[in-house]
C-alpha cells in the first residue's frame, strides 16, 4: 500500500459505524479504493454491504466515521451531495421511468435550463461519446419498457457517467443478467477502469470477484473481515472468510438412479396475454429420482413453463403426473389443484409470488396450502397449528432469526428462500418445480438448499430445476434440457456435456456436434 502514497485513494472510508436500534449494521469499517481499480465487496446477504453503500450515497448518515474522496474529507448528507462528489450508483433494482425514453431518463434530475430540447441534444451528444468509448450502446430513443434488463442496466450506468461520476458503485449487478450480458458488463467495467474510474462491485458471487476485481473486501455480520488482493486469493478462501467456516462449493451427490416417469409433458403450448406464443410444443419427461435442469437465457419460455406447471397460466397439450392427466384450461388448472396433484413449486420470484412480504413467517408457511385440513379448526383456521408447523420448519431449515412472528420482508434473501423451500419440500411432493433456487441467496443458504433438492431426488421424486446459472444447473442436474425461443433445443446427460455445448444450444443452435468441433 505504501507505493500508493503519492496518489491519494479515490475513495477512503475510515471507521464507518452505523446501527439501527440494537442491530449494528456496520462496525468500524475502513476501505480504500485506488483510482483505476475495481474493488469488490463480498459478503452474505445481511452482512452490511448495502448499508455501507447507502451511507456512501447519502441515504443513511453514519453514526461514526469519515469519508475521504481524493484525499479530501467529504460530507455526504444526501444523494445530491454524493453525485456532486462524483459518486454514481447502479442499484440492484433499477430506478428508471418505464415510459420515458433512454435519453429522457438520463437527463431526469439533471435537466439544466428551462427547455428540455437543449439538454436533450446535449445529452444525445455525450451519450454517443460514452457509447463509443465504453461499449455502452443503447438506442437513445428507445423506451425503457422495450429494453432488455441488460440494456436497462446500461442506461443506469450511463446515467451515472452523464453526471460525471468517477466512482461507480454497482450493487449485485449481475443478479438479473444472462451470462452473455454479464460478460458484456464486465467488459464495460474494464473499459471504465482503464479510463481511470474507480469501481466498487458489490456481489455475493465469488466467480465475479475472481474474474473482475483487483482487490476485494470481505464483510461478515457488519464487520470488515479482511481486504485481499484478488490475485493472491482463491474462491475457497473468500468463501470461508464470508461464511466464517469451510464451505462446500460442490454439491455432494451420488449418481441418480432414475425410476419410472413421474412428470410427462407432451406438445405443451402456451400463448401469453399479448398473444405471443411462449411455449411452442415442449416435450419433457422427468423420472423418479431425477433432477432435470432447464438451462437457457432468461426469457425463452422457462418462466411460462413453470407457470403452466404451477397452475397459473393456461396451455394446450398434455401434462401427466404419475399417469394422471392434468387439467390445463379448466377449473382444475389452478395452483390449488396442482398442489393436490403432488406438484410443489418454488417460484422464480419469491418477492412477488412465493411470499407475501408483509405477512409473518408463520402465515407464509401455510401460503398455498391454507386449505390443508391440518390447518383448520372447524370453520376457522388454526393459527396454533400453523405456528407450530412454522416453528418446526424454521428449526429444521435453520431460518434466522428463528422468529416465526417476524414479517417475511424482514428476513434476508437466503432466509426468505429457506422459508419458501421449507414450505414446498416438507410436503414431500411427487414433483418439485424450482425456479432460480438461489437467486439473491447467500453461500451458506445455497449449500443448504442444494442439499435439500438432492435429498428430495434421492427419495425418488422428480425435480424440475430452472436456473440461469449454468454452474447451478451443472451442480444439481442429472439431465439438462436447453430452452430457446419456446423450444427445447436439446437434452443432454449432465455428465456428457459441457458449458460450451450448452452455450450453443442456448443460442438456438441444434446441431452442436459439428459446431462444437468446427
Amino acid at each position, binding site marked *: 500500500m505504501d507505493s500508493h502514497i503519492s496518489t491519494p485513494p479515490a475513495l477512503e472510508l475510515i471507521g464507518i459505524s452505523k*446501527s*439501527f*436500534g*440494537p*442491530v449494528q449494521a456496520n462496525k468500524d469499517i475502513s476501505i480504500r479504493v485506488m483510482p483505476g481499480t475495481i474493488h469488490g465487496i463480498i459478503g452474505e446477504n445481511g452482512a452490511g454491504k448495502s448499508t455501507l453503500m447507502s451511507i456512501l450515497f447519502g441515504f443513511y448518515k453514519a453514526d461514526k466515521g469519515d469519508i475521504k474522496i481524493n484525499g479530501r474529507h467529504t460530507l455526504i448528507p444526501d444523494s445530491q451531495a454524493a453525485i456532486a462528489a462524483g459518486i454514481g450508483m447502479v442499484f440492484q433494482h433499477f430506478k428508471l421511468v418505464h415510459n420515458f425514453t433512454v435519453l429522457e431518463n438520463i437527463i431526469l434530475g439533471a435537466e439544466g435550463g428551462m427547455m428540455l430540447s437543449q439538454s436533450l441534444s446535449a445529452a444525445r451528444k455525450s451519450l454517443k461519446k460514452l457509447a463509443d468509448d465504453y461499449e455502452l450502446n443503447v438506442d437513445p430513443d428507445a423506451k425503457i419498457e422495450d429494453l432488455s434488463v441488460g440494456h436497462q442496466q446500461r442506461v443506469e450506468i450511463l446515467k451515472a457517467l452523464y453526471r460525471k461520476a468517477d466512482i461507480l458503485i454497482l450493487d449485485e449487478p449481475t443478479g438479473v443478467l444472462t451470462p452473455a450480458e454479464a460478460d458484456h458488463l464486465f467488459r464495460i467495467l474494464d473499459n471504465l477502469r482503464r479510463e481511470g474510474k474507480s469501481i466498487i462491485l458489490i456481489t455475493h458471487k465469488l466467480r465475479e470477484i475472481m474474474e473482475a476485481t483487483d482487490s476485494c473486501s470481505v464483510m461478515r455480520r457488519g464487520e470488515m473481515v479482511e481486504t485481499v488482493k484478488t490475485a493472491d486469493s482463491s474462491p475457497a478462501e473468500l468463501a470461508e472468510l464470508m461464511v466464517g467456516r469451510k464451505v462446500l462449493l460442490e454439491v455432494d451427490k451420488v449418481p441418480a438412479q432414475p425410476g419410472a416417469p413421474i412428470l410427462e409433458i407432451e406438445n405443451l403450448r402456451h400463448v401469453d396475454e399479448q398473444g405471443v406464443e411462449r411455449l411452442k410444443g415442449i416435450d419433457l419427461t422427468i423420472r423418479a429420482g431425477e433432477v432435470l435442469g432447464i438451462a437457457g437465457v432468461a426469457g425463452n419460455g422457462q418462466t411460462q413453463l413453470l407457470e403452466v406447471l*404451477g*397452475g*397459473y397460466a393456461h396451455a394446450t397439450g398434455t401434462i401427466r403426473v404419475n399417469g394422471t392427466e392434468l387439467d390445463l384450461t379448466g377449473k382444475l388448472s*389452478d*395452483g*390449488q*389443484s*396442482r*398442489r393436490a396433484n403432488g406438484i410443489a*413449486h418454488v*417460484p422464480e*420470484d419469491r418477492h*412477488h*409470488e*412465493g*411470499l*407475501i*412480504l*408483509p*405477512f409473518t413467517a408463520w*402465515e407464509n408457511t*401455510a*401460503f*398455498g396450502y*391454507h*386449505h390443508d385440513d391440518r390447518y*383448520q379448526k372447524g*370453520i*376457522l*383456521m388454526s*393459527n396454533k397449528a400453523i405456528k407450530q408447523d412454522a416453528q418446526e420448519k424454521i428449526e429444521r431449515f435453520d431460518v434466522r432469526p428463528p422468529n416465526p412472528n417476524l414479517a417475511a420482508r*424482514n428476513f434476508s434473501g437466503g432466509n426468505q428462500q429457506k422459508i419458501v423451500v421449507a414450505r414446498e419440500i416438507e410436503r414431500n411432493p411427487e414433483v418439485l418445480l424450482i425456479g432460480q433456487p438461489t437467486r439473491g441467496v447467500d453461500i451458506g443458504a445455497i449449500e443448504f438448499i442444494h442439499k435439500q433438492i438432492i435429498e428430495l431426488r434421492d427419495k425418488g421424486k422428480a425435480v424440475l430445476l430452472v436456473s440461469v446459472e449454468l454452474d447451478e444447473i451443472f451442480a444439481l442436474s442429472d439431465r439438462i434440457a436447453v430452452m430457446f425461443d419456446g423450444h427445447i433445443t436439446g437434452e443432454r446427460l449432465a455428465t456428457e456435456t459441457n458449458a460450451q455445448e450448452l452455450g450453443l444450444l442456448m443460442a438456438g443452435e441444434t446441431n452442436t456436434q459439428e459446431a462444437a468441433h468446427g
Partner: protein
Amino acid sequence: MDKMPPWADAVLVPVISLLLAAAISSIVILAIGENPIEALNYMIEGALLSSAGWGQVLYYATNYIFTGLAVAVASHARLFNIGGEGQAQLGGLGIAMLCLFIPFPHWTLAFVFAIVAAGLFGAAWAYIPAVLQAKRDSHIVITTIMFNYIAYALLNYMLVNVLRPEGAMEPASGNFPDNIHLPTFQEMFSYGDTILFRSAPANVSFFLAVIACIGIWVLVWRTRLGYELRAFGQSESAAKYAGINPARITIIAMLISGALAGMMALNTTMGYSERLVLNASEGAGFIGIAVALMGRNHPVGIFFAALLFGFLVQGGTELSFWTSIPTELIVVIQALVILFTGALDNMVRMPLVKLFALGKGDR
C-alpha cells in the same frame, strides 16, 4: 429494526393527529372571534356529559361502524369501495319493502329478516361494480361512485312514484308498522323513574354493529377467506401462484363490503326514522372512508374512530345550537380531523418513528 411499538402506532399517532387537528381548529375558532375552550366545553357537555348526548353519539357511531367496516373489508383486498352511500341507500330500500309489505308478529323476527334484506340489497348494489372490476377491469373507484348516483336516482324514483303513500307531499315511504319498532336505548336502559338516553335515536342496531366488529375481525384474521383476502390484497401475483382466484376474491370482498354498508340502514331507516326517506344514508358512506383510514382497517380502531366521528357530529350540532359558530365550521373541524388522521398521517408518524429509533439507540 422494527419501527415502533404497536401501541404507539395504534394509539399515539391518532391521538397526536387529533390534538393537532384540535389546535388548528382552535385557531380557526379564534379567528372568527369565538372562544375555542368554550366551544369545546359545549361540545363535550352536549355530547358526552349526558346519557341523551351519548345516545346521539352512539347513533351516529353505529352508522360509521358499519360503513367503516365496509371500507375496511374491501381495503384488505386492496379494493377501494367508495360506494358505501349507494349501498346503504339500497339497504334502506330493502328494509322498507320488507317492513311495509310483509307483516311480522314481533320486532325480533322483523329485525332478523331486515338484516338479511339490508345485507342482500347492499351486496347486490356492490356486486355489479365488483363484477365489472373482476371480469372487465373497470376501476372499482369509478364504478362505485357512479353507482352512488344511480342509487340516488333509483331511490328518488322509488320514493316519489312507488313507495310514497297516496296524497303525501313528501318523497318518503309510509310509516313502518308500530309492532316492529326497534327498542331504543331509552326503552332498554331506563328503569323506574330514571329515564336514560331521553329521546335519543340510538337503538338496538348498535349492538349489531358491535357484533359486526367482532365478526369482521374473525373473518379477516381467523378464517381461510380472510387469509386469502389479505394475501390477495398484498400481492395479486402471489395470490395467483397460491391458486387464489382473483375474480372470486374481488367479488366476495365487495359482496361483504356492500352487505355491511347496506346494514347501516337498519340503524337509520328501521331504528330511527321508521320509514324510508330520501338520503337516509346521511353521508355516512363517505365518513366511513375516514373512519376506516383512522382505524387502520382494524375493527377495534374503527369502533373508536366511529365514536370520535359520532362525537364530532353531535358536538357540532350542540355548538351551532349554543354559539354563533356557524354549522359550516363543524365541517371544517371534521375535515381537519380527517386531514390529520388520514392524509397527513405520515407527518406525525415519521418524527415519532425517529424518536423511537433514538430512544432505542440510547439503550
